[in-house]
């Protein structure tokens, strides 16, 4: 698992639990959330280190 990518098992879980119509849209929204959380975490960490 890449540190900047969501876990593959989560992607797989979404793929099996959502319809094809919803999968792309929902996983895209969650990926945006994930990236925002990662950036926020990195910023918090850098503030803490200072």
């Amino acid at each position: 698992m890449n540190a900047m990518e969501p876990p593959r098992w989560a992607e797989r879980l979404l793929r099996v639990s959502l319809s094809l119509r919803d999968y792309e849209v929902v996983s895209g929204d969650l990926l945006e959330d994930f990236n925002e959380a990662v950036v926020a975490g990195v910023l918090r960490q850098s503030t803490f280190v200072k």
Partner: protein
Amino acid sequence: MRARRLAPARVGRPEHYYSGSECCEEGIEVGRAKVYNVGMAESLGTFEQAVLLSVHRLSERAYGRPVIKDLELRLGRRVSAGAAYATLNRLEERGLLISRLEPGAPERGGRARRFYRLASSGIDALDESRVLTAALWRGVKWRPKRRFA
């Protein structure tokens, strides 16, 4: 995630209004509006109203994620993504929302975004909910005595 298919909402029909099995031609005057007998199954729930209003508020930016964030801001609580997406789907199936797919941006791995906008029946439904709420509160002097305060 797909909600079961519901009958299309019948809202804002000034001439005939079907409520359950009966047709109600007679409405009651509330201010300048006329309120028809709305069956519980046809009326909007609070969360549905919140979702429709979020879509209206966000206008051109109304897709899943901003809608969820706006709902959390307005309702003052966490909103589960599942509940929000299911409600958006249900409102679209009822004909109250219209969606369109747009190609995704790099920050979402190129995955498509589904943007929503209010259909004319969605606007009617919101309007009707607003009038109905006003009708419910009309004449109520809200100074309840709390016995167990």
